[in-house]
Structures are given as structure tokens and as C-alpha cells.
């Protein structure tokens, strides 16, 4: 049978590469390798054609053009940065080609666009707000000892599409719970100083800080916050830089203990018993291969995102397209994707998959995706929200003696 060609677009160089894009691309590669080792999909070998978007939008667009029109790939997959996702989704959709989004989370990719050929099983940025604010709300009384209305929240974020999207969701959702937003501030991820912001946070005295950022700014913030003696009860990060906990730990050691992070869950953290059978082994295999390939000891969520989405496509959508719709042209893939119905607990990241149908505001987005709240405790990451799949109770507020504890 013919080979099935996937055009994989990730950032292998530039600032996004280390922010998780590379990790996601490795996850995707592992999934494809594993499928091929099993003899491919319905006899079709999977060929991945990898492209480096260099953390630049125009390069991503050119690469998509090349992959689709010159390499003749059967679909585009991957894409880390939301700034690349938005134009690519529109372009690919307009060209009636198929785009399976693996990593980027911006809600703007789908919101009110009514895309036909673009699908995303991953979460979208509005869910970050949902997760962190619901988490706070749930534990307000019992852990923070306050009514949600009395909790003071500060939202800080980098001013790129990612940070802005998450912060908007945070603000909207937390306000719905009646929490006080005592400070909201954006900064450029390449800012060379954040001390003025830290001073303002010290003045505002928030109980909880919601932070979205990439790497250099997160380290800068944490360092300057500690040096300035900023105290709070909890810090909730939102993916991206916060999901590279390895790197943060290297720099800050125990100071990053008890930090919370919202993101799609890294599969290895879930309790395999609560998932569909066989998924535990799959996750273990992924973790094994990732560690072998990179020598890292923490497997970031992005690896799971790259792996899981690719896996879902190759094991659910593609076989159905071939069997039920007679091939894998964009039309067949589209129909197959719309048929997808994986129950909660049916993927290694815990969520189910069912796409919002055409005509709905978020058409193409997975309606069963979930973000979880994780906590880094003594070198281990635990899932602490939602309670249905949590593996531990959160340790909040920060215990006495912690560098940032009030």
C-alpha cells in the first residue's frame, strides 16, 4: 500500500524550541515509530516529513506550503506556537487540506472561524482559566480558609498570544467566582527587568498569583520575587515555561517546590488504573523512549501532547477514514474525525475526544479535552485537580519555611 505522509511542523530552533516544541516533536516521533513498528495503519506505512518553523510565523507558512504542495503530504500536524497556528489553520482550511493541531492552545484558532478541516484534540486556552480558577474556588474554604470572594488574585502574563489568551480566560473565570483581581499586568517575555512589577505585587499583596510566561521571564520573575521578598500563598503557572519544571528546578531547587501548574497532563502522572486498559503500558513505553532519546529524567507535558494527539489520529481517525470513507483525502479524514467519540479516560492524557461539530462556535475543537492542575512536590509532579483523576491532595497554602510563604 501507499505510504501515508505526515507533514510535521515544530520549532526546532529559536526561542520556542526549548519552550516545549522540541519535546512535543519527540513525542510525535515516538508515536509514529511505534505505529510503524506495528506495521503501520491498515498496511500503510507512516512517513513523517519534519519541518522546522524556526519560531517564526512566515517560515511556518512557507513550510506548510512546501509540505502540502511540493512534498504532497496528506496532512499537516504539529505546530507549537499559537501565532503560527492561527494563520496556518485558516490557510490550510481555505485550501481544503487537513490540519491536525497537536500543541498550540489558543482558542482564537477556532473561535467563530467555523473551520472544516482543522481539528484539535488538545485543550484550548479558555480551559486554563477554567482550571486554575475552579481549583482555587474548590479549595478556598478548606485550604486557604477564606471565602472565594475574599481571595485576592493577581494575574501576570507575557504579552504574546499565549499569555494574553490565558490571562483573559483567568480574569473572566475568576471574576465569575467573585474573586478579587487585585493586580493584572503584562510584560514582554524578553523584558530585562521585572522588579517594578514585583514591587507592585508586594503592594497589592495577592493571596494567589496566576502567572503565564515562557522561560527567561519566569526565571527572572521568580528570582526577583524571591530577592524582593514577595510572599504569597500559592503560585499557579500555566503551561509553557512552567511545564519545563526540570529547568526551573535546576535553577531554583527547592524554591519551586509546591508550585502549581495548569496544562494538559503528562500521561505518566495519571493513575493508569483509572484509564482504559492498555494505556498505562503505552505511556510507560513513551516515557521510556523519551528518556532514552533525550537523557532527561522529567517528561514534560508537551511530550504527551505530541504523542497523544498523534496517537489518537493514527489509531482512531486514520483507520476509520480508510475503512469507512475509503481513503485518506481531506474529505475522508474530516468525516472520520467528526465521527470520533472517545470516552473520558480513553486517551493517555485522560481526556476523551469528541469534536465540536461544524456550525458551532468552536467547531473543530475537542469538547472533552481537560486541563489539570499539577503540583511539584519534592521532585515529583502530582495531579491535584480535577479531583476525579487527581493523584494527590494539593499542598496549599505554601507551608511555613518556604521561600515564598507568607
Amino acid at each position: 500500500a501507499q505510504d501515508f505522509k505526515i507533514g510535521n511542523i515544530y520549532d526546532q530552533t529559536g526561542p520556542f524550541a526549548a519552550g516545549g516544541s522540541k519535546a512535543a516533536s519527540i513525542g510525535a516521533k515516538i508515536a509514529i515509530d511505534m505505529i510503524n513498528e506495528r506495521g503501520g495503519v491498515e498496511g500503510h506505512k507512516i512517513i513523517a516529513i519534519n519541518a522546522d518553523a524556526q519560531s517564526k510565523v512566515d517560515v511556518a507558512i512557507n513550510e506548510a506550503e512546501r509540505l502540502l504542495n511540493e512534498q504532497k503530504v496528506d496532512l499537516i500536524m504539529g505546530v507549537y506556537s499559537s501565532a503560527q497556528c492561527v494563520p496556518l489553520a485558516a490557510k490550510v482550511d481555505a485550501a481544503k487540506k487537513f490540519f491536525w493541531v497537536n500543541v498550540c492552545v489558543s482558542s482564537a484558532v477556532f473561535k467563530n472561524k467555523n473551520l472544516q478541516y482543522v481539528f484539535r484534540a488538545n485543550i484550548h486556552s479558555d480551559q486554563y482559566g477554567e482550571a486554575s480558577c475552579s481549583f482555587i474556588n474548590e479549595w478556598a474554604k478548606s485550604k486557604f480558609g477564606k471565602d472565594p470572594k475574599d481571595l485576592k488574585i493577581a494575574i501576570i502574563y507575557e504579552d504574546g498570544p499565549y499569555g494574553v489568551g490565558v490571562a483573559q480566560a483567568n480574569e473572566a473565570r475568576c471574576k465569575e467566582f467573585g474573586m478579587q483581581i487585585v493586580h493584572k499586568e503584562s510584560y514582554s517575555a524578553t523584558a530585562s527587568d521585572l522588579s517594578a512589577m514585583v514591587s507592585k505585587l508586594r503592594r497589592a499583596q495577592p493571596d494567589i498569583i496566576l502567572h503565564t510566561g515562557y522561560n527567561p521571564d519566569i526565571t527572572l520573575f521568580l528570582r526577583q520575587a524571591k530577592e524582593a521578598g514577595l510572599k504569597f500563598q500559592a503560585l499557579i503557572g500555566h503551561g509553557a515555561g512552567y511545564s519545563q519544571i526540570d529547568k526551573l528546578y535546576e535553577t531554583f531547587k527547592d524554591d519551586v517546590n509546591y508550585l502549581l501548574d495548569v496544562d494538559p497532563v503528562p500521561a505518566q502522572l495519571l493513575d493508569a488504573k483509572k484509564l482504559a486498559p492498555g494505556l498505562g503500558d503505552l505511556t510507560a513505553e513513551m516515557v521510556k523512549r523519551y528518556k532514552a532519546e533525550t537523557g532527561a529524567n522529567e517528561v514534560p507535558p508537551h511530550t504527551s501532547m505530541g504523542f497523544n494527539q498523534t496517537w489518537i489520529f493514527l489509531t482512531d481517525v486514520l483507520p476509520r477514514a480508510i475503512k469507512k470513507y475509503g481513503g485518506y483525502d481531506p474529505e475522508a479524514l474530516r468525516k472520520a474525525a467528526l465521527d470520533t467519540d472517545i470516552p473520558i479516560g480513553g486517551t493517555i492524557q485522560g481526556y476523551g475526544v469528541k469534536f465540536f461539530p461544524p456550525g458551532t462556535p468552536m467547531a473543530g475543537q475537542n469538547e472533552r479535552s481537560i486541563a489539570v492542575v499539577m503540583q511539584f512536590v519534592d521532585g515529583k509532579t502530582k495531579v491535584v485537580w480535577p479531583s476525579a483523576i487527581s493523584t494527590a491532595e494539593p499542598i496549599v497554602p505554601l507551608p511555613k519555611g518556604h521561600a515564598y510563604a507568607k
Partner: protein
Amino acid sequence: MDCQLDIFFLEAVLNGLLLAGLLALLALGLNLIFGVIDVVWICYAELVMIGMYGIYYAHKGGVPLLLAALFGILLVALAGAVLHQVVIRPVLDSAPINQLLVTGGVLFFLQAAATMAFGVDFRNLGIRFGSITLADMSFSYSRIITFGVALAAMLVLWLFLSRTYVGIAIRAIAQDRQIMPLMGVDQRRIYLITSAIGGGLAGLAAALMVLQYDIYPQIGLQFGPLIFMICVLGGLGSLIGGFVAAFIISEFIAIGGSCFATEWGYAIAFLFFMVVIFIRPQGLFGGRS
């Protein structure tokens, strides 16, 4: 706008002051190069990046921090000299803009080379100093050290330039390069020395920055534009001007950042810059056009 003139505001202002030390140090080397050789090293921040990596790997390899810092300084000094010899010298007589652009090529080159050699990961020495508290205000030691070292470096450079033969030759060559041979001064050698000093200052800045910042190939983006703004504002080539401008800009960032948002702090500093330049195009302390 919520400009509360309380202790936190004061803290922000003082932190701005401390940041200014680092920025002034960064501007110093660039201004020295421009003042003497009449060339803008667009890739200056990338030299700092090289220095940071040098120090990082030396320290990780077991070299004590101070020695590693020294190694970093020498490394970048060497890089500065090589940059001059290999890239700048061939274009010394061509249009000034070509000199600016050729270092732009070096910028791409160095960023890519760093990506290839060191990977895209963020690295950090993980060294932490504490901070001192003063009436509810906190100031980190690493920033205070940076500020002190920056001041000391400026003092040493000033002494060097005003007391030693070579230092005076460096200042002289900036004022009239044609007659330098009449003084028995070899222009090429002075240029090399100046480039090495400029590099060394970048290395020194690198040594201070590894204490506060992550190291990654694109770190130049974090500082490059800011340094150029400072140098132009102070008057390209004016050491004093760069110093003063560093303080003005970082206070604008600090005060703008504490009255509005950090995002707008930069924009305000920037607007101020544009306005000043339209009133005084040669910069605050610039002598020539």
C-alpha cells in the same frame, strides 16, 4: 494610572537605579568602540552571550566562579579583537552603514553558532545570593554587586583612559586619527586593544549577568535594543552620555512600570527617547552629528 508614592514606589525607583548600573556597563563598551573606531557593533549583546556561555561551562566544569568570570572576560576580549581583525578591518574604509550591517551578519552567525554548539535550552548557574532589607524594601545582593562592579569598572576605565599612555592614545585617536602616526602610535594596534577592551567589558557584563539571567542563544534580544537606545540617547560614543542615559532609561522603565504596566514602561521610555532625539538628534551628550 496608579502612581502611589509609597515605599514600594521607592523600591522600584531604587531597583531601577541598580539596573542602570548593568545597562551603563553594557553601554560603556559599545560607546568605547564607537567613540574610537566609529563602528557600531550591532552584535554586542551576542558577545555578552558568548561570555555567559563561557562562564557557564567553565564553572560547570569545576572552575571556581571568580576564575570562570575572569576566563569569560578574557574570552570575550579575545572575541572582540578577532571580530575587529576579521570583520571590521576589511570594511573600515567603506560606508558606515556597511560597517553596521556587517556586524549584523555576525549577530546571525553568533546566534546560530550558539544554537548549534550549546543547544536551545535555557541554562542557569543556579547561584543565588540573598538580599538585604531596608525599611520594608529589599534589594538583592547580586544586583548590588553588579552595580558596584559596574561603577568600579567605569572608574577603572576612566583611570586607564586618563592616566596611561595607551589610554590617552585611545582617546586621542577618536579625535584625530590621521595624525596618530606622528605621535608614534600604531593605529591598528590601538584599534585592536580598544576592541579587546570593548569585548572585555562585554565579558564583564556577562560575568555579572550570569548571576541574574538565564543563558540562551537569543538572550541578545533581551538587551540589544535597550543598549542601542541608551547609546543613541546619550550620544553615540560619549561614555558619560551612555552612563547618564542608562540611568534615565532605567528610571523611565522603573517608574513607568510602576505607574502603568511593565509593558508600557518600555513604551514610555521609548517615546521619551524619540522625543529627545527629535529635539537633540545628536543625543544628550553627543558632540558630533
